[in-house]
């Protein structure tokens, strides 16, 4: 008795020391990974800030019919093709009458985005009676201007903030700012437009909708197929060499590089079945191939975890195999299956390589309206923008990543909600 006590007591200190050592390792490991994550998130969010702002410049434009190059009572087609750029340039010259040199004029014109023309066009289309009057309206500014005014408070003293704007241009901006003709607000364009060559006009919406379509297809294809496969393999299939082979292959499939699936999609769906290129339909099917093994494996694990006593109880009452599975096992396994599905879909959401192979890397301006419209996806958009030379696209890239992460968070939240609902029942 006492000897046991002594022996145990002697080893107690050692045991506790081992425990606290292990805790320390754990805390260090978690801190390291958390700090990496925090660093990543902070740097991306910080870089993305300018992309969420949009700067506009207030100009007084002379909507003279002659200057617009349209008749006195123009039809819609004439309005659409009117010379807005000339009007805007005129307004800028009016604002800064001292600018005479050709090169300086060009610099002056570049303060306003080419998108301003479309703004002006829409403004007139809305109410053609403004033709012939003088209007003071806000027009979207160039991306460099936006980048600078969101970065520094005084554009004449910018320190070493990188910018392409010349000193002269900054002087003009300063003048405009003094007269309260520059305003910066939330960038709605970013969330309402498709891609564009001009950073200030480029939006994420096309990619966001594209990703949503792709994920919808992926879910609709992979979830039923994977769950059915998992149920069959786990509950109905005999254990023999064939099912072993299938099992090994499913596990291998989970490790196949995603670009291979892209090649497969290209060869099978586009070249053989002649389905439309760049469409979310194919993107979704290709990504389903990737998500399938993930969902199958986790669904099987979830099915396996259902206690055998539940099956026995149902069978003992005379439930058939199918009834046992669908009335008892599947509902209990559902939270696990959903978790696996979300993990699979999250992977699919972040996947770029296979989408490149099937042409979803195209420059998409229009919002895709269906699963067969040409589309791109969020990660591909990130990839595209990160390749663009304009500085403002750096911010856009980060902003697209933020949107991608936001999408993920929303998806996970939905999953947690669904899981809670399934679990809360019992």
């Amino acid at each position, binding site marked *: 008795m006492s000897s046991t006590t002594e022996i145990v007591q002697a080893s107690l200190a050692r045991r506790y020391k081992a425990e606290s050592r292990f805790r320390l390792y754990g805390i260090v490991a978690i801190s390291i990974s958390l700090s990496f994550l925090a660093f990543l998130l902070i740097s991306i969010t910080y870089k993305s800030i300018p992309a969420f702002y949009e700067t506009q410049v207030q100009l007084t434009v002379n909507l003279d019919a002659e200057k617009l190059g349209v008749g006195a009572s123009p039809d819609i087609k004439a309005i659409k093709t009117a010379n807005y750029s000339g009007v805007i340039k005129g307004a800028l010259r009016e604002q800064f009458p001292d600018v005479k040199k050709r090169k300086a004029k060009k610099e002056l014109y570049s303060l306003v985005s080419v998108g301003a023309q479309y703004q002006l066009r829409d403004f007139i289309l809305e109410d053609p009676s403004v033709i012939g009057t003088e209007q003071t309206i806000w027009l979207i500014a160039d991306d460099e201007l936006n980048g600078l005014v969101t970065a520094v408070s005084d554009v004449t003293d910018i320190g070493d903030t990188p910018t392409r704007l010349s000193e002269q241009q900054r002087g003009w901006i300063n003048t405009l700012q003094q007269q309260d003709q520059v305003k910066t607000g939330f960038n709605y364009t970013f969330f309402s437009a498709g891609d564009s060559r001009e950073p200030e006009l480029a939006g994420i919406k096309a990619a966001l909708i594209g990703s949503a379509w792709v994920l919808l297809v992926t879910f609709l294809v992979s979830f039923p197929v994977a769950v059915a496969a998992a149920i069959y393999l786990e509950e109905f299939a005999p254990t023999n060499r064939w099912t072993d082979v299938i099992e090994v292959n499913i596990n291998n499939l989970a490790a196949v590089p995603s670009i291979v699936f892209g090649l497969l999609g290209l060869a099978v769906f586009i070249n053989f079945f002649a389905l439309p290129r760049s469409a979310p339909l194919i993107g979704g099917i290709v990504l389903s191939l990737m998500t399938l093994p993930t969902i199958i494996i986790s669904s099987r694990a979830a099915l396996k975890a259902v206690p055998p006593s539940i099956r026995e*109880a149902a069978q003992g*009452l*005379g439930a058939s195999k199918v009834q046992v599975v669908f*009335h008892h096992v599947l509902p209990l396994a559902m939270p696990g299956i959903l978790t696996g599905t979300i993990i699979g879909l999250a992977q699919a959401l972040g996947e770029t390589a296979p989408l490149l192979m099937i042409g979803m890397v195209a420059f998409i301006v229009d919002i895709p309206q269906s699963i067969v419209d040409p589309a791109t996806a969020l990660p591909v958009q990130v990839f595209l923008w990160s390749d663009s030379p304009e500085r403002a696209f750096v911010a856009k890239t980060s902003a697209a990543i933020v949107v991608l992460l936001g999408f993920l968070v929303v998806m996970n939240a939905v999953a947690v909600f669904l899981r809670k609902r399934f679990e809360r029942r019992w």
Partner: protein
Amino acid sequence: MSTSTTLNDIIPGSPAIQESTKVDDVTAMLDSIEGTVGTTRVENPKMEMREVDVFYADKQAIYDVDLDVARNEVIAMIGPSGCGKSTFLRCLNRMNDTIPICRVTGSITLDGVDINTREQDPVLLRARVGMVFQKPNPFAKSIFDNVAYGPRIHGLAANRAELDEIVISSLKRAGLYDEVKSRLDAPGTSLSGGQQQRLCIARTIAVNPEVILMDEPCSALDPIATARIEELIDELRENYAIAIVTHSMQQAARVSQRTAYFHLGKLVEVGKTNDIFTNPQHDLTENYITGRFG
């Protein structure tokens, strides 16, 4: 071997305590078991088992067992752990079908009809031969749905009122209704262990089977819950044939009319419960009920 004294107190007339039996002796005795001591057959049986062998892969778990289950009677199956009581019980409603490596030979009949033929549907059989398991295993559903599940899948109730009627009467017969009537929507798993087991019994009788198999139904329960279930078994006997596996000799003595003693897969002795406990014929039976092994 002090436990045998208590047993002696409970079951008066047990044979005097003998020397502890050695394992070698047991093996020798087992080899010497030829057939079963006592009458394995009854008149007009509900179920008949003839020459039943059960194998798990190559390993034999039941050797050549003959046994009848009589109508309106409780038969208790006792024996040391691992002797094949559960295996044998599970033959009676073909639950062993669910274990791929398990193979049953010999003939088992219900009302004179072989249950192991291809034509016999295990689903129908299990509706007629219900089972209560050792561990309470309510479904992850409400108390009501637990009991209603069997009638629902078999289509026993024509409408909701009939279903309510079946559920309530089953709960009443299982002696659970008063405790749960205010919360039939609560999950079955929210009940205590004893209540869960009575729920499982209610669930089984809701299908209105002809035979009820119980595999150590009280092993997870306290004495009060056990007593309630024993009472219940006694009442159920009026309408059903019941086969119960138990590790408690007292329980076997209390609830059963006949007792079968299994040892290492063989049916050693069968007889009227009274006779088995007061005057066992076989040495193994005697050793077991006097608490010398098991």
